[in-house]
């Protein structure tokens, strides 16, 4: 079982619905209540000014866990004009999943592929 923790940084909720659909449809995926016990962190939303500090603090605490940017907002801020991981200098993401929102299948495939390559490395 791959344990997932979701970080919403100002998302519209669309990617979050599709992530929930992906977890419900794929038996390999499950939720966990704490980022400390997660196998992967899923980032949604354009990283608003209000949520940036909280995200960076959380990332410092769990720097070894792979971080996946889910949806275009998390990558480049999409329609909101700014934000996303591209704008945060110290934030490295292992995988970027494109789409507004990405399909549940794309999300599940990306999570499994990221964790597989993590194990191999």
């Amino acid at each position: 079982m791959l344990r997932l923790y979701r970080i919403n940084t100002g998302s519209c909720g669309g990617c979050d619905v599709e992530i929930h659909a992906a977890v419900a449809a794929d038996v390999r995926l499950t939720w966990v209540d704490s980022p400390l016990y997660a196998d992967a962190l899923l980032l949604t939303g354009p990283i608003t000014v209000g949520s940036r500090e909280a995200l960076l603090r959380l990332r410092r605490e769990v720097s070894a866990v792979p971080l996946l940017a889910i949806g275009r907002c998390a990558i480049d801020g999409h329609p909101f004009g700014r934000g996303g991981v591209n704008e945060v200098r110290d934030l490295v993401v292992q995988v970027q999943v494109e789409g507004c929102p990405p399909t549940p299948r794309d999300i599940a495939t990306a999570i499994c592929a990221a964790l597989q390559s993590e194990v191999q490395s």
Partner: protein
Amino acid sequence: MGYTLALGPFVPNWRGPQRLVLKVEGEVITDVDYRAGYNERGCAERLPRLNLDQALHLVTRICGTASHAHSLAFCQALETLLGIAVPERAAYLRCGVAELERVISHLTGLTALFDVLGLERYTDMTRRLQEGSLQAMQLLAGARIIPDMCLPGGLRADLDADQRSELLTVLAKLNRRLFRLIDQAIDQRGLLTRTVNVGTLTPAVAEQFFIRGPLARASGLNADLRIDQPYAAYQQLTVRRIVQESGDVYARLVVLLLEALESVKLVEQVLEQLPGGDWQGALPQRLSAGSASAEVESPQGLLRYRLESDGRRLTNVSIDPPRPLDRLLARTLLVGALVDNVVLIVCSTDMCVACAEC
């Protein structure tokens, strides 16, 4: 001895990134500190700087589960400003997408509620129903969620006869399964014990706080814009008002369940009565000077857009979303509640932070 307890997005089923810091004495909440603002994206300020195409793209993405409601309100305001008429077929299809969006949104809230209650069987049922409604949205609007359907004066895409008949089959299945869920869940003893007289919001408080939408209808207020001030094709459709008097978590759950079923029936009604004719919308080449506003009944309640234009571009856009779970409302609902019931009460309000902090 008292202690503080923080609740936030790390709680499973928490909708949005807001935080609650609770002061607890024994098992009872004595005070609530509500911390929000994590979702603020400055959309209303950004909208006047965009051209109409970009603006429509942005409003459609303010909230994932009320995406069509935002784009519909924006387009209706533009149509009022420019005096554009909407063909009947487009008006019907707009209602269809809006109602299917309501089904998806309500089922999202219900899945969270049943999960918090630990009623795994119902959680699985609502999750499957939600997946079914997402697939229905794919058939109707070409996208599972965030349907880019609305354009001023009409729609971007039509529904052909094959899609219509396939959709009717999917909807009949949804209708049957949702009815079965309601029939089984509504008087289940475990559910009643946990939800009746919990987190009560009285009609007087709901009215005073100007709450609208399902949360208000669960507290005995019968405001529903689709019936009170029909827009799009709601005048021609038979919309049933769902109202519960008790104002507790149970009433809110029942309202979400029954409204989801009514909305499925409304989409069926739309498809059965769907008139032929023109449907296509287009982005206007130029704007008229003036101001206009439009209101719609979004899945979470009253959503209003106000536009001002100088004749060349939009100069001001204001968005009045449904009332969010702010500090005052959180205090009213939670002070005096048992600590075990807090997540349940918050989930039952089914309030959308993405709409509130746009």
